[in-house]
């Protein structure tokens, strides 16, 4: 059976029941409901955290709300990355919690300049999307030299020049130890990885330096869970991350998909504790396992990353810094980790672009957050003055809302009336998206305004308006 949230009343019993409102909710019951829906965290209740009398309750609450997949926190002095903390196998069962963290590798054969350049590219990676900045999360330092001193030097350079938390990658305990020795204590890195051959030494190190520890057991799930049991119970290490092996090609890829799925299934449906840890995939494997040129390797790295993000990976180690490899990954990750219970929508209504007047064009779009933010940014870039009508398509994009009958004359009329836009402009012309051409008739019939079908993409609006909103053209339009 999958994880089921506790009943709000059971949570409520453990809260202070003072309705003090410090959490931002009107009363403790409302806060309990939020906790059960995972929309709030117990730490948001100040009395619970601060007052001695609630200590027991706080502990019980945390246990009740504990996710079947442990949340592991990686830290640098400047940043915190949380991975795992998942409750469900399927997104629609609740929601996914901590987005898959993407690590990019740096290796210890690189000279200082190469390292600095790579750090800069990793940290500067950024893509603006629905008002969010999509970024990379971690740096994975690999030891290709197998020389402890060289590794320590590399870790030192990276830690002094990057703000990101780290993964230290080597099977050699001496190398890992050398790396750990140069990190300050406000780092909590992930060590990659304990295997069937080195697990004692790596567990000792993880214990001594209080780090998170990855366990790698490629192709062998029995050994993987045996190591989990041994290390978690024998050493008391709970911050574990599991890697069942990322393969490509015949047999291998199927195994990887199977292993990730089985592990997450056992954690979330059977609540089997030895599988209840974040999972780590290595799309970087494409660089050693795929034959072909560099572009082939990058393609398969992108393919692996998307597959693993979709099938439960909580951390990915990648090599490509190519924009086209990473862009779809960070965008898909964003979408997958949105809350399916909430449509990504903005409130309907009229927005003023620049300083519109009574003769400025009136544009129509949907209230899907992405459509809206793209249209807004295109309009702002083009420095035009216009009115933008945002209709309530229930968070659907233009083409989908047209297909689903949510982009209609009635919806446009609703906004025209409520905003009194018909009193603010003198003309009666609506410009609708090219993808909504099919409903132009309906909009004309219902609103009585003339409808002009605009471009297919909003980046052409400015060009389009130059043509159509010129004085003579406009005269033609207003007269017909």
């Amino acid at each position: 059976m999958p994880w089921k949230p506790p009943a709000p009343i059971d949570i409520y019993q453990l809260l202070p029941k003072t309705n003090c409102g410090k959490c931002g909710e009107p009363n403790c019951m409302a806060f309990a409901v939020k906790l059960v829906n995972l929309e709030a965290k117990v730490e948001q209740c100040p009395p619970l955290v601060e007052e001695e009398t609630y200590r027991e309750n706080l502990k019980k609450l945390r246990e009740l709300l504990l996710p079947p997949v442990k949340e592991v926190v990686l830290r640098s002095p400047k940043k915190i990355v949380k991975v795992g903390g998942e409750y469900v196998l399927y997104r629609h069962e609740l929601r996914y919690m901590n987005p898959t963290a993407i690590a990019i590798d740096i290796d210890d054969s690189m000279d200082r300049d190469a390292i600095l350049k790579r750090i800069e590219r990793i940290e500067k990676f950024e893509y603006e999307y629905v008002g969010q900045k999509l970024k990379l999360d971690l740096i994975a330092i690999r030891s290709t030299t197998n020389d402890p001193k060289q590794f320590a030097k590399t870790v030192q350079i990276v830690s002094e020049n990057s703000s990101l938390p780290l993964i230290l990658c080597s099977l050699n305990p001496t190398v890992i130890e050398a790396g750990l020795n140069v990190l300050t204590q406000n780092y909590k890195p992930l060590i990659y990885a304990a295997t069937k051959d080195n697990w004692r030494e790596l567990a000792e190190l993880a214990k001594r330096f209080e780090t998170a520890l990855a366990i790698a057991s490629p192709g062998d799930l029995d050994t993987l869970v045996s190591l989990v049991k041994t290390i978690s119970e024998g050493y008391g290490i709970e911050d574990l991350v599991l890697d069942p092996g990322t393969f490509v090609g015949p047999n291998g890829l199927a195994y990887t998909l199977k292993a990730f799925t089985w592990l997450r299934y056992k954690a979330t449906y059977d609540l089997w504790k030895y599988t209840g840890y974040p999972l780590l995939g290595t799309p970087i494997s494409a660089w050693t396992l795929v034959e072909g040129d560099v572009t082939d390797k990058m393609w398969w790295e992108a393919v692996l990353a998307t597959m693993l993000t979709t099938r439960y990976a909580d951390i990915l180690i990648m090599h490509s810094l190519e924009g086209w490899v990473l862009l779809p990954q960070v965008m898909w990750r964003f979408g997958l980790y949105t809350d399916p219970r909430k449509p990504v929508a903005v409130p309907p209504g009229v927005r003023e672009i620049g300083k519109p007047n009574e003769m400025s064009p009136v544009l129509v779009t949907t209230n899907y957050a992405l459509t809206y933010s793209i249209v807004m940014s295109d309009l702002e870039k083009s420095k035009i003055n216009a009115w933008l009508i945002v209709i309530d398509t229930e968070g659907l994009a233009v083409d989908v809302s047209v297909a689903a009958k949510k982009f209609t004359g009635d919806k446009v009329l609703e906004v025209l009336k409520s905003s009194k836009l018909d009193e603010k402009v003198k003309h009666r012309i609506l410009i609708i998206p090219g993808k909504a051409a099919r409903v132009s008739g309906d909009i004309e019939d219902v609103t009585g305004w003339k409808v002009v079908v605009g471009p297919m993409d909003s980046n052409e609006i400015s060009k389009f308006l130059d043509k159509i909103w010129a004085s003579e053209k406009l005269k033609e339009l207003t007269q017909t």
Partner: protein
Amino acid sequence: MSEHKQRKNVSEKSGRDEDVQRVSEVIGVLAKIAEALEKGIVELYNIDINIDEVELKLPLQILETLPIPVAITPPPKAVAEAKPEVQAGVAVAKAVEVVGKKVVELMTLAFEEPKLKFVGKVVEVKLGATRSEGGTRDRVIVLGGHELPPYYYLTGYKPPYPPAFGGDVFDMKISLPRAVRIVFGDALDNPEEWARIWVNKFGAEAVDLHLISTDPSIKDSPPEEAVKNVDRILQAVKVPVIAGGSGNPEKDVAVFNKVVEAFPSEGIVINSLNLDMDLEKVCPNIAKTNAVVIDFSPMSVEKAEEINRKVYTWIPRNRIMLDLNIGGIGYGTEYGFTAMERARLGALLGNELLQHPFNVGAANAWGAREAWMAMDPYWGPREIRGPLWETLTCIICLLAGADYFMMLHPLSVKVMKSLREYLFSEPKPRDPEKALDWLSAKIPVV
């Protein structure tokens, strides 16, 4: 310069404590300090060390009270190279550290494979018809038949039919992304040639003809013309053919009626029926033939049940596919993905209204700006971004259980066919250790 985590007052604890663990911790610190001093990379603050005490008293005490130690850690290089003045201390410290540890043995566990309980089965749907079945196709495609969610690889269960990939062809010239224009060139003016290239050169397993010229707001070409276009494709290629309308509900009814009437035994796939259509005006005619229909319910599992329930009035369940729609990555892919996952699980849990193979209009991926727009050079050429976007969108749908994919770019088809081969092979890596090659490999930085 860094500090150590285990800052302790060494002298305070030493020599009078039988707590083995604590003692070994203390000694561990000493060893590390010695090591660090040797490397010259650590500065120590607030640490009070009294090496003499440790050196002389501890080992004797511990050795008396503990069993013979089992060596766990090989001495690190740095210790072996310790400077003369600390060598003795380091050696002792290391020995004690080893003694102080409890030896952990591997506790073995077996990983029991998941036991999934499902009762429903997705219907098997056949696209196309061979000569013996009254059609003229050389090959047919069978989809569906699933009894478990996709890609679980449970022992004893093999999904009966793998997914299939078809190539998109339009009945008139439309604006297409550059990446697609480059590949098909002049064939884009000639749907038959386009279809032939798809099948003969790029291995499409079916052809998706989109009769968009019938759209009243485009060319409004009559249903008779649509029939001619379908016929041309049926002549040009011998794979199953999907006949798609314009999306105008009234016109599509007229077009579909003519198409199934003209080709009643070809196993034509009608793309698609939706709740805006007058279903009673088209379904009875489709029912008389061996055509398959795709029921279209954009991102709504509830509406999917509704349309399927209606269509059952006329058309047998094993001639219905379901399309829950998909957007390209960044453009609502998660809605379609989650709708598909929900619908397939519902189907397997016994909801008969959802027990249909999924169609995916993967070409929608090109609706994402990132797939076709010229961007800053950092993001790479759109000729790569486009097909990659389509491929990755397909992969996401594949993992949600999609069965048939309508695709625009041959590279996407090629990758998806390799992927299918990989995913339908036995899940057993040939050389497990190779999964860790990346750890120490020299990988070029591009």
